[in-house]
């Protein structure tokens, strides 16, 4: 398996988990690790978070996501990888990003999945704006461990 099998995308439409799973399935796979990053409910000085609004530099973000998948393949013997991130508004409770990795055994699937989401959050040209119940918005500051 090489990177031509990888499913790397930015999309404005909701993430279809079954489509992402289908993209990493194959008959040599003994395990698929799957990570969904969700928009979590938060409050701030009496305001409710309604959702997040994602902006990307698409050409750069896709190139960086492909580079992360390439690096994951160098480090772990994975079969197929999928990295899909949403752009635009994502309501609370819905996924904004998905990473899936399949391997002959579970260890490489878990490790590659973790590596890809950690690298994506640190490196990829995507920004989130928090949208609050009074209509205000604030650009999220990157936090470690978030």
């Amino acid at each position, binding site marked *: 398996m090489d990177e031509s099998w990888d499913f790397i995308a930015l999309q404005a439409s909701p993430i279809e988990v079954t489509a992402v799973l289908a993209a990493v399935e194959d008959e040599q796979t003994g395990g698929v690790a799957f990570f969904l990053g969700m928009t979590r409910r938060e409050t701030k000085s009496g305001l409710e978070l309604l959702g997040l609004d994602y902006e990307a530099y698409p050409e750069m973000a896709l190139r960086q996501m492909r580079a992360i998948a390439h690096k994951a393949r160098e480090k772990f013997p994975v079969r197929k990888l999928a990295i899909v*991130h949403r752009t635009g508004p994502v309501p609370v409770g819905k996924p904004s*990003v998905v990473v899936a990795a399949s391997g002959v055994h579970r260890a490489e699937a878990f490790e590659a999945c973790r590596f890809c989401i950690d690298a994506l959050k640190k490196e990829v040209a995507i920004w989130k704006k928090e949208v609050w119940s009074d209509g205000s918005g604030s650009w999220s500051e*990157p936090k470690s461990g978030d």
Partner: protein
Amino acid sequence: MKIRLKMFAMLRERSGVGEIVLELPAGATVSQALGALEKRYGGLAELLPRAATAVNLCAAGEATILRDGDELALIPPVSGG
């Protein structure tokens, strides 16, 4: 020469534009382009030091020399995921 300059997230909001064309002398650097930008959009001054730069989708530094038609992007700290 002319370059295209792209801004994202808080930089885009603060300036009110996502993309502008900058007219620069031949051989101008990224640093000179940022100087020209700051002159036009004073409100960006405090945000620029935290922004990384990329030229034609590759990471670039302040000393990188620009060419006619280049795409310079200002990339504030990322927060995807």
